[in-house]
């Protein structure tokens, strides 16, 4: 991981535009992100079953802890592998 110093005046947050929302999930890869809250995995297991039944490709991810933002490597991996992401907030 490379960490650099921001060369700008920092008066504006770094803007990362969202991708457009897809009109259909057909042919897309769906990322399922477990944030490590209890029973989030059960919710996502069921979602995975339903998505796979529809013939979609599913990738599973898990944050080390729900108390912190996802590590930059994990965010990059999700962004690289998936078209959409479903994140489970559970307890």
């Amino acid at each position: 991981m490379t960490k650099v110093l921001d060369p700008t005046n920092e008066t504006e947050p770094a803007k990362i535009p969202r991708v457009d929302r897809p009109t259909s999930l057909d042919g897309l890869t769906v990322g399922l992100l477990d944030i490590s809250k209890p029973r989030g995995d059960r919710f996502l297991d069921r979602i995975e079953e339903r998505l796979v039944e529809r013939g979609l490709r599913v990738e599973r991810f898990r944050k080390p802890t729900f108390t912190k933002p996802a590590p930059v490597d994990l965010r990059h991996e999700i962004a690289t592998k998936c078209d959409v992401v479903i994140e489970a907030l559970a307890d």
Partner: protein
Amino acid sequence: MSQTEIPDLPDGLVAVVKQDCPTCELIAPVLGELAEKSDLTVFTQDDPNFPAEISNRILDADLAISWHHDIETVPTLLLVRNSQEIDRTVGWSRPQWERLSGVSELGVHLPDQRPGCGSLSVDPSLNAELTVRFGGSKLRGRRVEFASLEDTHEALFERGWTDGLPVVPPTEARVLAMLEGTTRSPEDIVATVPPNLVPCTVEKVAVNAVMAGCRPEYLPVVLAALEAVCTDGFNMHGLLATTMPHAPVLVVNGPIATKIGMNSENNAFGQGNRANSTIGRALQLVIRNVGGGRPGEVDRAALGSPAKVGFCFAEREADSPWTPISTMYGFPSGTNTVLAFPGEAPRNVVDQLSRDPESLARTYAANLISIQHPKLILGFDAILAVAPDHSRIFGDAGWSREKLVDRIVALTVRPGKELIRGAGGIPEGLPEAMADLDLPKFRPNGLHIVHCGGGAGLFSAIIGGWVNGEMGSNPVCVEIIP
């Protein structure tokens, strides 16, 4: 992540060594003797198997022990009680080692003393990294992380932080190393940078200087250049926002130019010299990243010029027939200065036949008249860069810079009727009311004659200026402070 907790030393005798040190190799048997007769711990900086004689050895892999306990030389022998250092000796000296350890007749087959080697923890190539690791950062800027699988160079482009060429990633270690180039504090405000009028710290300049490819010793020049262009007189905002193509052109004078390896000779305006190529670029990156001045936004240049990437060179002072250009601004010869001039890209002037100063001055005047437009006068300054094959002609004839400037300006005087709108079938020109005046091309102190270039070639070059005076920019020369 910086670690500031200081690791404790074990009690007893502590030796810090590295295998790559002949003195440490020499005294390895002494360490064996001490291990038998006292309580010795050896920290080794490089080879975990060194010294082979010692079982109680610990690899100081991240150099935390060495860095935190200020080990500058290996071997260093320390006496520690209750985790506190009582005494130390550096290098090998039998009397000192015997005194510190209380063990007599140490290393009887060895010479009495031998100086040590530099500790890895003070190795210049590791220093910045270790300062980041252990020192607690004095930098205030926002940290931005890129993923391991992300291409850092691509990520820097995507964030809009480059001028279209690759930049050096501004890691904390590199920025700290860059800041070693100045005595100024990282949080000092250097200037208020247009167009967004942002107060810019030394640290932010250092970040952009790293990105531009500068070495730390160039930083004082970049700081001075930024101060110069951010003055009211230079009017960086206007120069950036104009539809004209001009940019700050930086001319460096004084011994610093040679000291940091700047080029004032062959290809002085061209590629191949790191200082020339990166100092001007660092200034432009500050204006882009800190000031927010980007082409197509506040930068409205219709055509632009290669000078907008960065344009910096040194005056060839050593064999110049003239005093440095900085003397025009009241600085004594030998002062380190940077002149910021609002200029365009250079163009060549050929005269391979003139051998006397008068005819060469005529060549210059004929070319200089065409800056911006032959019928537009007084509104634009210029740099005339004279290469040695031309300057020699003036030197031999005893023409000072002032004499040459006065002669060129006199030769550019033309009757107003040739310059007014419509004259010569060209609508561009001066108002009709000026038809009866005789007018020179340049205002007083508008023409800047600079000596530079390689030793062969009967050429000079012109760098035309942007609108001068209150409506535009005045060139600004400032001293470079270390």
